[in-house]
């Protein structure tokens, strides 16, 4: 299961990177919408990683770490970054629908990057996780 989770996290990282690449300069309303759709779908996939991690049993400090569990500090960081990213994305929706970008997309990407980093902490907290 640990390997599966790590593989899933890696897949989400790859899709997020692809989505962010799509948000480089775009021309025309449909390009903006397609980029927005890709970013939102990729972010939704990232939320699934958070949901899976969140549904693990909390780690018990007195018990040996032989099971996959959820670190409280990591989970708090995920929740905080997720709330910020969703708020930032909500602010950017109008841009994805064709409104003028006044920095909303950049702020959303920055917030998503912070959440990606928090998910990376979750990956590293798993037994045998990435360094």
């Amino acid at each position, binding site marked *: *299961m640990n390997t*599966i989770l790590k*593989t*899933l996290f890696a*897949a989400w990282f*790859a*899709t997020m990177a*692809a*989505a962010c690449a*799509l948000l480089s300069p775009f021309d025309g309303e*449909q390009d903006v*919408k*397609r980029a*927005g*759709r*890709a970013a*939102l*779908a*990729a*972010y*939704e*996939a990232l*939320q*699934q990683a*958070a*949901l*899976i991690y*969140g*549904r*693990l*049993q909390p780690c018990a400090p007195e018990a040996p770490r032989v*099971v*996959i*569990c959820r670190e409280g500090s990591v*989970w708090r960081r*995920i*929740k905080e970054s*997720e*709330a910020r990213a*969703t708020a930032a*994305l*909500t602010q950017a*929706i109008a841009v*994805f*629908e064709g409104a003028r970008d006044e920095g909303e997309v950049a702020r959303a990407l920055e917030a998503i990057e912070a959440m990606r980093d928090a998910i990376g902490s979750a990956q590293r907290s798993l037994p045998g996780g990435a360094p």
Partner: protein
Amino acid sequence: MNASAVLALLREIAANLPPAITTGLQVIQLVNDAYLDLQEAFEERAVPAGEIEALVKRIVANSAAIQAIE
């Protein structure tokens, strides 16, 4: 990761769910849906009216579910 690899991964998860994940099947469904949406999102087809709004609604719902976990 291509679609068949994703499906293989999801099947492996279904076969190896630990008891700790009490709502595993629901989570798998969410993951599966997310990947299908992702696949569509990277396609070149036009974005129909309301699709962005529907995505946002799901993201807000996911956010509420995440924030509800203590």
